[in-house]
């Protein structure tokens, strides 16, 4: 059972997704949550406070994905992170819908989002480096190639779902992960390809 505060946050998330942050009024949130505006004002003094509460929860969920680093000592570690990121972006894609508005109006949230994104990028790079050490991925032929690879992966992680939706295509976890593995595949060594075939292919292909 959700308490009133949680109920307000959950309702706001839904409304932000449907109408965008700017178009949602306090009255609308109160109506949807089934409470009075006075009660809403008792819990959150203004709209900014509600936005902050919504995004605090969202960013906490997002940063918790970072905790799964190196929990498995093989390529499944990569795969698990892909799954977690897919789940996050699939269930919380209202954030991306409101990204530009957030940037304009709520710079503190934007800064936090940026920081977590940078950490995800660093994790991707470090995972690639680790797999080079393990002999699964070839060392970079040109300086900065793996940095660009990590950036392409982050781009796919963030914008793959919106571009599928824009084209009216299916959004599935398997397809999402295939898109990501497809970026890594050209860099695999023979050993990496073997491990990929043994561990990842049975799971997603």
């Amino acid at each position, binding site marked *: 059972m959700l308490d009133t505060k949680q109920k307000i946050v959950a309702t706001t998330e839904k409304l932000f997704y449907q109408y965008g942050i700017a178009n949602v009024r306090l009255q609308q949130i109160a109506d949807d949550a089934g409470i009075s505006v006075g009660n809403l004002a008792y819990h959150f003094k203004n709209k900014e406070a509600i936005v902050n509460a919504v995004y605090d929860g969202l960013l906490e969920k997002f940063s918790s994905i970072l905790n799964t*680093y*190196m929990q498995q*000592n093989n390529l499944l570690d990569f795969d698990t992170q892909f799954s977690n990121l897919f789940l996050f972006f699939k269930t919380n894609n209202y954030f991306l819908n409101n990204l530009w508005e957030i940037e304009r109006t709520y710079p503190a949230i934007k800064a*936090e989002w940026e*920081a977590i994104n*940078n*950490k995800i990028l*660093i*994790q991707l*790079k*470090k995972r690639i*480096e*680790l797999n080079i*050490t*393990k002999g699964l991925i070839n060392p970079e032929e040109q300086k900065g190639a793996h940095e660009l690879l990590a950036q392409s992966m982050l781009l796919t992680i963030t914008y793959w779902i919106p571009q599928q939706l824009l084209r009216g295509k299916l959004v599935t976890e398997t397809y999402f992960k295939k898109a990501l593995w497809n970026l890594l595949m050209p860099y695999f060594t023979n050993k990496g390809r073997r491990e990929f075939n043994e561990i990842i292919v049975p799971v997603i292909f």
Partner: protein
Amino acid sequence: MPAKIQLDDNAYAAMLDCINTFYSTNTPAINLDTDFIKDDYWLQNTAVIENIERRKGCWQIFLVFAHHLQPLKFIKRGITNFSCLKKATLTAHYMRRLAAKDQRGTLSVNAAGINIIFN
């Protein structure tokens, strides 16, 4: 609400590097990795002989570790050097005592074991 701690990107990258090193510590070793224990076991029963040579204007201390039964099985390692012969001699003496299994030097090399054939 507690203040949020922001970790600098470089510090975060360094932290992940540390986590990456767990890969090597959590990977089981192969038997070959511990072969040096078996291979160097014979060094437990060696006579240690100090050896001082003049090299490049200095007195270089070498320690020769020879198996007490098979003197042909030995290794020679350069340890350090001194510009003064007396100092080198004294240091070599203490080094030998430190390295030898029996510090009084009773474990000696069996010269007959060399068994050189003069033909």
